[in-house]
């Protein structure tokens, strides 16, 4: 299990696979990802494995400020 935006989800190999499964897609503009509180640059989305138990935050821009 991994934790994606606060909910339990099945494991995913990496961020690219996870975003595809969520229907967001790895090409989506305006998206950032943090693993256990640390930003993971887009260039590393395909290469860094998601260990079980990882807290993944997937964020984007909304109206505000």
């Amino acid at each position, binding site marked *: 299990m991994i934790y994606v935006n606060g909910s339990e989800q099945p494991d995913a190999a990496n961020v690219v696979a996870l975003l595809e499964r969520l229907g967001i897609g790895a090409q989506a503009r305006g998206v950032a990802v943090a693993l256990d509180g640390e930003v993971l640059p887009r260039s590393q989305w395909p290469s860094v494995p998601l260990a079980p138990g990882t807290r993944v935050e997937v964020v984007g821009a909304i109206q*505000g*400020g």
Partner: protein
Amino acid sequence: MRSKVADTDAARAGARDELVLADRTLPSRLLLGSGGFTSFELLAQAVTASGTALVTVALRRIDPQARGSLLDVLEGLGVAVLPNTAGCYTARDAVSTARLGREALQTDWVKLEVIGDEQTLLPDATELLLAAEQLVADGFVVLPYTTDDPILARRLEDVGCAAVMPLGSPIGSGMGIVNPYNIALICEHAGVPVVLDAGVGTASDAALAMELGCSAVLCASAISRAEDPVAMAEAIAAAVHAGRLARLAGRIPRRLHATASSPFDGMPDLG
């Protein structure tokens, strides 16, 4: 008494009197918050009516079902996007959120907000300064939302912020500028642009900010929650422009006694 900021700004921008913020020259002195608009269409119309070139956005968890195209809307309007750290209570969270914003939006600009509590949404001075210092060291162009404290404004400038953005009154309160003396003091001493951020309720508040020496005004609720947001965007843009012109024109001093504008010499004797 003119602030050195207003004069330097005007000189650098030349006859067009554009706003120079860090390495960017902006054609409008009104910055717009995108929060509170009930639709993208209304937001787009307000952006156009305001003439703004810089619009803030917040960062939140993505809902795959409800993904809109806010960025597409803003890009289509040709305005730059400024991510904020709204909702952060600690320097640590604000720094992390700023980094997410940089990654998501490919900009190293950040509107830094670190609030102290939910009721007032007032900035937490110590956390704010700490976050500002860390973000500047990390290469960000930091635009901090701050209290109207002239000393804190100076400290933020000292750690390398590209502007200081004091509140006129609490976010969304619409109470205008409750301490114009502090805003004037901040403008008088600042070596970076001062942007009045938060508290504007209507056009006259924005004009006053500019007359006090601010380089720009950032508005969200005053426009987005007005009865007619598009008309208010136009009104506040006009007020920012009028206030700026008045500032550069140099107002007359306030006096206790009247000063006649018609001469007394040459009065006819009508006795």
